[in-house]
Every structure is written in C-alpha cells, then in structure tokens.
C-alpha cells in the first residue's frame, strides 16, 4: 500500500528536482536577457506568447494542476519580468524572445511536475506585501490572509502592540502586521534556518526590519524561547503552527508533500502537538489580558475549547473562534487570565 503511494511521489520528486535546478539557472539568465533586450530590443526571433502557450493547458491538466489560466498568467508575467496585474488576460501583443521562451517552457515543465507555482516564480503576494519564497520554506495560504486580516482589525486601534510570532516561516504574518500597523513591534522565532534567513531578508526588502526581530530557535518543553527572550512578556502572540494530523499525510497534494518542509506541517496524531507547546509558551510569556491567536485545522477550535476548559483554567481563556472565507471554523482567539 505504502509502496504505491510513495513510488509516484518519488518519481515526481526526481523530475521536479531536475527541473528546479534548470529553472534556478534559467532564473538568473532570464534577468540577464531582460537587461540586454532593453538595450538591443531586436535579439533573436520573437514569438507570440499566445503561440507559445499552445498545448500547455492540456499538459497541466493532465498533470493534475488546477486553476490553469492563472498559473499560465503568473508564469508568463514572471518570464516577461512584468507585474502580474499589468499583463492582459489574453496576452494580446505579448512576445517572447528565444531565451524567454526556453525559460517559459522549463518553468511549465516544473509546474507539470507539481512544483509549487510560488517556488517557480520565486515570490508571492501576501495581502499588501510581496514576499520572496524559497524551497523548503512554507508558503502562506490564502486563508492566512483572512486570519491576519482579522488580527489586524482587532488591533487597529490599540496604541502599542508588542507581538511574538511562533514559527514565522517566510515572515508573511508578522510582516503584514508591521506593514499595516505602525504601532506594532514584532519578534519571531523559527526552527528552520532557511526560513529564519528568508524572513529576515523579506523584512529588509520591505524596509520593516527596524521593528522586526527573528530568532532561529526550536520550541521545546521548558525551552520555549531563546535565552535572549527568556523574561519577555508580550501583548499578543500569533501562530500558524503545523496542524496536519499524521494520518492525513497520505492525502496531501504533491506540491505540499514533495516541496514543502514537513516540519511546518506535521502536527502529530491530533494535529495539536505544536499548538500545545504554544499554549504553554503563552502561559509564561503573555501578559495578563494579552491574547493568543491561532490558525488551525478544520476540527480544531472545539477541541481547543475543551483543552482550555480542562487544562488551562485560570491561565488561558477561550474567547472566540472564527470561520475562514470557506466557512470553515479555523481561527481561535484565546486570552491570558
């Protein structure tokens, strides 16, 4: 049983790894060609984008990729080095030169191998900011935008917020908070070295690094925060901890299983292994009245409510849960007593 499951996956990994190396190379060459074409616009024969697209829709469909038009548009605008929202939906009058065409095909090949779109194009938009992405670093999901929007609305009128994020990944949540609310100071911890680096890089790219700190630290029982932060108290803690149950791993999309860091997903048998650590951390590092906001999986909020009532009485209170845009109860708001 397991063999049937892992074999095709291994194969996709293989293809993907190969095409990723290619695309990485071509990514830099794309930049070079863009620079040269501006000086000498007539380099090589030009091909209509619409012509170049021929057949790819079917190939992507065959590979099981959904939302194909959008994928194509993202890749086309990336290859042409144009902003997504300036590229017309029908690609009218757009042309590739031969190098761009080669990049385009390589990227689509990678997409057919189910490499996440966000990794192929190397950046992604999250709310009002654009973040760099990197392989192995978790890519923020659309629901997380909804989650952080809720948090932002809740803190819009608060005078000063000292915030901690547990497991910041690419920095999406903290940096969006900082971008939207000037009164926020954010500290983040992250167990992956690559992600820590990426989050810091993103903060600098966005010019938000003055109000942002990130520490490479793995949260464990009785070692919740790095020594520098040992006696810190926060007004707000946010986290999108790994919450996928171990038994659910077999149902994940190849984009997720093959390309994303499983440490950012694995929530143990009930999906709350890391969340429980965050509860403990909150008891120690949240000031009385401070809040903990979590994005979790579908059936978690009722479970969290039970856990609060059973184990955290007098320490943490369950305030409310919220639905995401797909009407699933996913977000919880807790308060330190």
């Amino acid at each position, binding site marked *: 049983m397991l063999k049937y499951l892992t074999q095709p996956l291994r194969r996709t990994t293989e293809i993907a790894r190969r095409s990723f190396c290619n695309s990485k190379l071509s990514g830099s060459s794309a930049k070079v060609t863009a620079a040269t074409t501006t000086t000498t616009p007539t380099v090589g024969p030009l091909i209509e984008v619409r012509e170049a697209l021929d057949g790819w829709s079917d190939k992507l469909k065959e590979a099981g990729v959904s939302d194909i038009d959008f994928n194509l548009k993202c890749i086309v605008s990336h290859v042409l080095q144009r902003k997504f929202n300036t590229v017309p939906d029908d690609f009218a009058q757009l042309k590739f030169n031969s190098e761009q065409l080669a990049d385009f095909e390589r990227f689509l090949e990678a997409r057919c191998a189910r490499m996440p779109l966000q990794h192929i194009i190397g950046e992604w938009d999250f709310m009002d900011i654009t973040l760099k992405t990197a392989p192995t670093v978790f890519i923020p*999901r659309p629901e997380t935008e909804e989650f952080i929007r809720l948090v932002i609305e809740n803190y819009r009128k608060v005078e000063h917020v000292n915030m901690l994020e547990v497991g910041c990944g690419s920095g999406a949540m903290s940096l969006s908070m900082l971008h939207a609310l000037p009164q926020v100071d954010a500290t983040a911890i992250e167990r992956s070295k690559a992600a820590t680096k990426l989050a810091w890089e993103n903060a600098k790219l966005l010019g938000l690094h003055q109000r942002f700190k990130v520490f490479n630290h793995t949260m464990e029982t009785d070692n919740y925060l790095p020594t520098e932060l040992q006696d810190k108290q926060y007004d707000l803690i946010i986290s999108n901890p790994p919450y996928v149950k171990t038994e659910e791993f077999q149902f994940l999309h190849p984009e997720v299983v093959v390309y994303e860091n499983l440490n950012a997903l694995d929530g143990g048998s009930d999906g709350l292994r890391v969340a429980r650590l965050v509860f403990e951390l909150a008891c120690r590092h949240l000031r009385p009245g401070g809040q903990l906001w979590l994005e979790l999986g579908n059936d978690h909020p009722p479970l969290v409510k039970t856990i609060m009532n059973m184990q955290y009485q007098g320490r943490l209170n369950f305030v409310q849960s919220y639905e*995401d845009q797909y009407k699933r109860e996913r977000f919880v708001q807790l308060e330190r007593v």
Partner: protein
Amino acid sequence: MFRKLLRVRCESLVRRWASTDPLSFQNEKLQSYLESLRQEYYALRVNAAGNDRLYARLTRLDPVVNSLEKHRALQRNITSEKDLLAEKDEDMRALMEEENNVYTSLLRKQEEDMLQELLALSDDEDYPAVIFEVNAGAGGQEAMLFAQELYDMYTSYFDHMGWEYEEFDRETTDIGGLRHANLQVNDPEAYNWLRFEAGVHRVQRVPATEKSGRIHTSTASITVIPRPADVQVQIAERDLKIETKRASGAGGQHVNTTDSAVRIVHLPSGLAVESQSERSQLKNREVALKRLQAKLIHQQLQSAEATKKATRKAQQGNLNRNEKIRTYNFVQDRVTDHRVQQGGTLHNLPGFLEGGQQLSGLIERLQLEHRKQALMELLETWQPPPQEAADKN
C-alpha cells in the same frame, strides 16, 4: 472742438450699449445683484458661525465682495465731473484729469477681476468627486481603439491637473482597444472641468484595422456623473456572497492551491463583480468590493440623475446629453469642438491627445462660456430682495 464732441457722443453710445449688456458693470441689475451679494456676505459674517453650509457660502462670497469693496474704494477716488468743472486752476484740473484716467483704467481692471470672481461663483454645484466613464460607441474595433486613446488622454489630463483618481473597472480588447472604463476622480474641482467633456466624441480617420484605406467615422462617449458627498453605500458583510474557485475540498496547510480569483455577489441588488487581477486573494476581494461599491453608487446616482434629467428636459425642451460634442479628424490633423461658435477648431491633434495644456485650454473656454451663460440666466431671473426695495423707498 468737433473731435471732443464726437468723443462725448461715442462715450455715451458705449455707455448705452454697456448698460444693455447684462455682464457690464454699468448694468443696473448687475449692480444691485452685487449689492445683494454684499449684504448677504455681511449678514453671513454675523450668522455663519457653527453652520457649515452657511460658512461654505461665506467663503465663496468672500472674493467677490472683496473685489467689490476694492472697486468702490477706487470709485471714490475719482473726482466727479462737477468738482472738475468747479476747479478754476487749469494745472490743477489737468492733474485731476490725469489722475482720473489712472483710476479709470484701474477700475476697468478691477471690474474684470470681479467678473471672474462672479463667474466662478456661478458654479453652484459642488461635488467632492466624479465618476468618469469612457465607452466605445459605434464603429466596432476602431471605436474601441479610439476609446483607448481618449482614456489615455483623460488619464494624462488628470495627472496634468494633479487630480487623484482610481480605476474601478476596465475592459480591453485583443488589439489594444477599450470597451469601457470606469474611474473615480477625487477632486472637488474635477466636476467643474470634466462636465464639459460629457457627450459623444467622434473620430474620423483611416483606422489601423482598415485594409483598403477608407476613412471611417466612429464614436466613443464620455459620461461624467458627479458624486455628491452624501452618497454613501453601506455594504453589510452578511449581504455578500463571496465565491472563489475552490469551493470544497481540503484547505489550509493540506493543499497549496493559489486560489486567488474572487467573485462577489451582492444579494440585495443581485449585482455580481469579479476580480482576478491580483495574485493575492484578499487583494482581489478588496478590488472586487471597490468595484461593487462603484457599481452601487453608480446605480444610485443614475436614478438620481434620471429624475434630474427629466426635470431639466421639461424645463429646457429637448436637451440631448448625448449629442456629438467634438470631432477628432486625423486626416486633417484637427480637433473641432462643436459647441464653440468661433475658433472651435484646433490643430496639432497628437498634442491635443496628450491631455495637457491644449485640452485644458479648450475646457477653460467652454467653462468660461458656460459660466457667463449661467450668470446671465441668473441675472435674468433674479429679482432684488423686497426688503431692499423697501429700504430704498
């Protein structure tokens, strides 16, 4: 001697003509209108405190009354004819006459200024923003290409004027044409300029799409709908149905779909809007909501505008808002505005389409004409307030 007589005759003729011209300061009606404005102004100065509407009126009256007071001060400096005749000393009289000449020319200048202020006052409609629309008309692809050119012209004109604008909706075609676009210009001045651009714009040229080299005539129309300050559309979240492509199946960390396109249905009105122009779903939702808001405002304004139009029609006969206002003739490199009686034709079409000084100058002329017309109409129907008449008696 004869020459002097002639001059006197001429002057009296000029004066008589001037007193029939409703916009001349010799005109008694204008004089008493100005006086009534002055009275209103001083009355407001006492009463306006704390009332926004009155205060706004006061600030608008201020330059006119200011100008009027200056005018009166100048008038007082002019030595009257009686005094002039009474003066026995020749030298002294020459000096007085010279002085009078200087004051008279100053007076004329002041009158011009005052007229400008008065004309500006006749823009009685004040709106914080306008909804500006470009629609391709008759002429297929060519009309859409022309609509795009108009769109470019107006957006650069907004930049030229330093107005802020946001785009709500734009639908383009394959070959770079524009079906329609919907913008909001956020400037209180915008309506007083852009209102003269509403109507049908006609283009005559050999289109890029034409194979056999014939000249085509196509049209595009501009709609300008003022957005009053009090138009507020409240959209309640529970009235919205937000749809994305991923309707069901797992979410969150389990999948990595880039589910960004958004469609919003406003349940009470049945209006639906979409956005897929951004990579972020939340951004698309914001864009779609803005579009929805624009559409709802548009609907509301159009019904308000329709009733207004009906009354205007009843008053003024058949005033067709959709009449052709301007022709852009590429073959002859000219722009003709059909509302300007003399000199409505300008050359250098490409320069005009840049939306800079040339367009601005034309609108300014239309604006001046409109203001004069408005002021004359106002004076025609204006009656001095009764208590003033009583005061005079």
